[in-house]
């Protein structure tokens, strides 16, 4: 009954979405009487999908093996947290999560957004319903998560052990909230283009959604990067895997949107531009979903290879992106450009930010899709990886990071003050860092060297907007900007330090043997067998010393039975100045064990930077929302902020 309840809720929600869309069309044509009904329908629709998703969690929690999806992806002897998180560790469940977030976002939007034109609001709700409708159809026709299995199985086939990790509970839902949160920006842009009400008010209504989605994307990507780093045992934090790119592309677009939307909100300028970015941002989310869920890629995220699903998703993508682009082509030209600005101004800075982000996005997009394109055309198979992305996008990203230090110093409309003088100290710091790298590490690559240089410069430049201001009277949004930009410097320094200074040691060690890596001496003590709830393992014991007292690391190779798989559990010890990363491999005939050691100076800065960027976004979001509340209480805000 549980599964049937979930399925019924899904059908009902799909019906309501259709109704919501029809009401939108009639409301826009002949008056707004349907408005109240649409809000109510959106809220009920969101609630129904939540019920449906709760039902899925329930059948997974109790391992109901009469449900095909549970049989395929779960197992009774699995810890409860992975039983529940396993609900979205598969194709159907993750698509249900996608739709649930989409509909729930629509419901929250219907519930909370009152501060914008009623017509645009209704058009946006209709667009959101249209989006949801396509994905309901996809679930109900091509990926029913609640399909029954007859007769029921005695035992499930288990969850991929790589996914049996706390990361699964956090990383996919966060990313999905981010991906799909952008749908509201898409719907708002669509609605505003329909009604022609592209103005600062729209931007202020859209901004919290973009900020919120962007924060979650940032944190989701950061978490995913760290998960891959410790779980795969390869010692890398980013592999330019197409699936990683699938999350990076919406992030790049959302980052651009986040900056241009401020121009629209503050100055009423960059109208068409911002609408275009809002369309592109969610389109990139859908492209990502298509890449990941259609099975065209080789990845841990590609759960199933099913051409029908791929075609279906591609069709949806074509319809939504096509409709938005056509609407943009028809209406975009008629948008009046807002307040003018001069060449040296905050607006120009943000336009350059947008241009660079867009070029990087284009490079990542083309590099990710190129293999698919070549294979479709010539049948030849190829892959595009780090050599391409680092060499082509890396220098642009560094240039962007340099400009991140400049943009916030400029004032709106025109800049007449000699602001560039302020950058003398950060620039000197950057030069100093550059010289130090030549002395300390003359042989490192050009990108890591420049990364360290720009990191040092930006760490100082990013806090300049606070210099000479009373910190308590500085708006929270400004604090958020500073923290996020400082986070970029931190992450950049971590990436560069990791690339420049990592030392690696791979050896076959006999018990008692000592290996050196970086400043460490690591003694291999031996191995012991271990057992967990649904796995057995060989655990190595390593004792590492560096001047002071020893630390013990215990990397494992785990053997899972359902499905039969091995995973490496790296043992990582974190110090203030880096991480010691150890993996144990296979034994050889002579009684030695393969041991791989890394000393990764300052690698943790990468994820610390990511968290800071997200935190900066959160500060800005809180600041903006708080300001809206305050404005609401003060009727004269229009004059004050005009």
């Amino acid at each position, binding site marked *: 009954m549980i599964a049937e309840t979930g399925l019924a809720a899904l059908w009902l929600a799909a019906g309501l979405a259709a109704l919501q869309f029809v009401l939108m069309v009639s409301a826009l044509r002949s008056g707004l009487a349907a408005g109240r009904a649409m809000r109510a329908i959106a809220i009920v629709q969101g609630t129904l999908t939540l019920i449906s998703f709760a039902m899925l969690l329930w059948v997974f929690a109790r391992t109901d093996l009469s449900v095909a999806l549970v049989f395929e992806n779960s197992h009774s002897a699995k810890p409860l947290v992975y039983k529940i998180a396993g609900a979205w560790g598969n194709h159907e469940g993750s698509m249900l999560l996608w739709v649930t977030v989409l509909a729930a976002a629509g419901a929250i939007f219907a519930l909370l957004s009152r501060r914008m034109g009623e017509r645009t609001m209704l058009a946006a709700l209709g667009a959101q319903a249209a989006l949801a409708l396509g994905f309901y159809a996809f679930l109900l026709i091509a990926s029913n998560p609640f399909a029954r299995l007859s007769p029921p199985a005695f035992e499930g086939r288990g969850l*991929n052990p*790589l996914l049996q990790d706390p990361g699964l509970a956090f990383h996919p839902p966060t990313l999905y909230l981010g991906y799909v949160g952008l749908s509201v920006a898409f719907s708002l842009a669509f609605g505003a283009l329909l009604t022609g009400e592209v103005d600062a008010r729209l931007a202020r209504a859209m901004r919290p959604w973009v900020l919120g989605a962007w924060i979650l994307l940032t944190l989701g990507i950061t978490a995913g990067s760290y998960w891959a780093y410790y779980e*795969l*045992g390869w010692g890398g934090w980013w592999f330019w895997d197409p699936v990683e790119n699938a999350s990076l592309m919406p992030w790049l677009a959302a980052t651009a949107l986040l900056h241009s939307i401020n121009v629209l909100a503050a100055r009423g*300028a*960059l109208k*068409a*531009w911002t609408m275009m970015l809002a369309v592109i941002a969610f389109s990139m989310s859908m492209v990502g979903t298509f890449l990941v869920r259609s*099975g065209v890629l*080789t*990845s*841990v995220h*590609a759960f199933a*290879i099913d051409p029908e699903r791929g075609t279906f998703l591609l069709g949806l993508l074509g319809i939504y992106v096509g409709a938005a682009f056509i609407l943009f082509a028809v209406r975009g030209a008629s948008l*009046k*450009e*807002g307040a*003018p*600005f*001069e*060449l040296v101004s905050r607006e120009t800075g943000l*336009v350059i930010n947008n*241009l660079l982000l*867009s*070029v*990087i*996005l*284009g*490079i990542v997009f*083309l*590099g990710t899709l*190129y293999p698919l394109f*070549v294979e479709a055309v010539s049948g*030849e*198979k*190829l*892959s*595009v*990886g780090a*050599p*391409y992305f680092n*060499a*082509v996008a890396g220098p*642009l990203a560094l240039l962007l990071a340099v400009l991140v230090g400049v943009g916030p110093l400029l004032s709106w409309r025109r800049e007449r003050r000699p602001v560039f003088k302020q950058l003398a100290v950060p620039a000197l710091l950057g030069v100093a860092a550059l010289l130090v790298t030549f002395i300390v590490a003359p042989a490192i690559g050009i990108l890591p060297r420049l990364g360290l240089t720009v990191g040092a410069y930006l760490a100082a430049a990013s806090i300049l907007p606070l210099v000479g201001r009373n910190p308590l009277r500085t708006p929270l949004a400004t604090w958020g900007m500073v923290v996020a930009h400082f986070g970029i410097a931190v992450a950049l320094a971590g990436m560069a330090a990791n690339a420049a200074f990592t030392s690696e040691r*791979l*050896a*076959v060690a006999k018990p008692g043997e000592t290996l050196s890596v970086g400043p460490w001496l690591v003694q291999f003590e031996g191995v012991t067998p271990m057992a967990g709830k649904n796995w057995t393992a060989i655990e190595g014991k390593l004792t590492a010393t560096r001047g002071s007292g020893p630390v013990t690391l215990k990397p494992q*190779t785990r053997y899972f039975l359902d*499905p*039969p*798989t*091995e*995973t*490496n559990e790296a043992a990582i010890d974190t110090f203030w100045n880096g991480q010691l990363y150890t993996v144990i*491999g*296979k034994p*050889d*005939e002579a009684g030695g064990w*393969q041991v*791989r050691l890394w000393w990764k100076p300052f690698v943790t800065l990468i994820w610390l930077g990511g968290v800071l960027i997200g935190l900066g976004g959160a500060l800005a979001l809180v600041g903006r929302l708080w300001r809206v509340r305050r404005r609401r209480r003060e009727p004269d805000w229009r004059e004050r902020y005009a």
Partner: protein
Amino acid sequence: MKPKNQRLVLVIAALVAVIAAVLLAMWGLRDRAAYFYTPAEIAAGKAQQFKPMRLGGMVAKGSLRHDIDGAFTFNVTDGKASTRVRFRGILPNLFREGSGVVAEGKMVGDDFIADNILAKHDERYMPPELGNLAAEHKAGKTLKR
């Protein structure tokens, strides 16, 4: 700047950005994309020396050797030809003799020097690159478990 001119400048800037991205990507992809080859194609001399590429096939049974410095040597075969692969690193967990594999690296002489052996993440999963090979293999092997 007049609003009208401003819009023109913005449109031109956007177009320049799009064109720049395409040109940069084309320039980068020309010599940085790694082609995928099978041992038969390598035997036919299709692969250039020292050029990054991927090699896919089955690990030949009985060919895996463990060298003293932690490196591995094994043969990859597609039934028609076979290529010797050298790899320094930890093999992915699902690496087995008789099972599918994709290696990233380059040809040096007659050997394929792998920088990376791609993990098959899941027992049920086969890299699409292996195409028919994988299908044949699946029918024989994975059903046994």
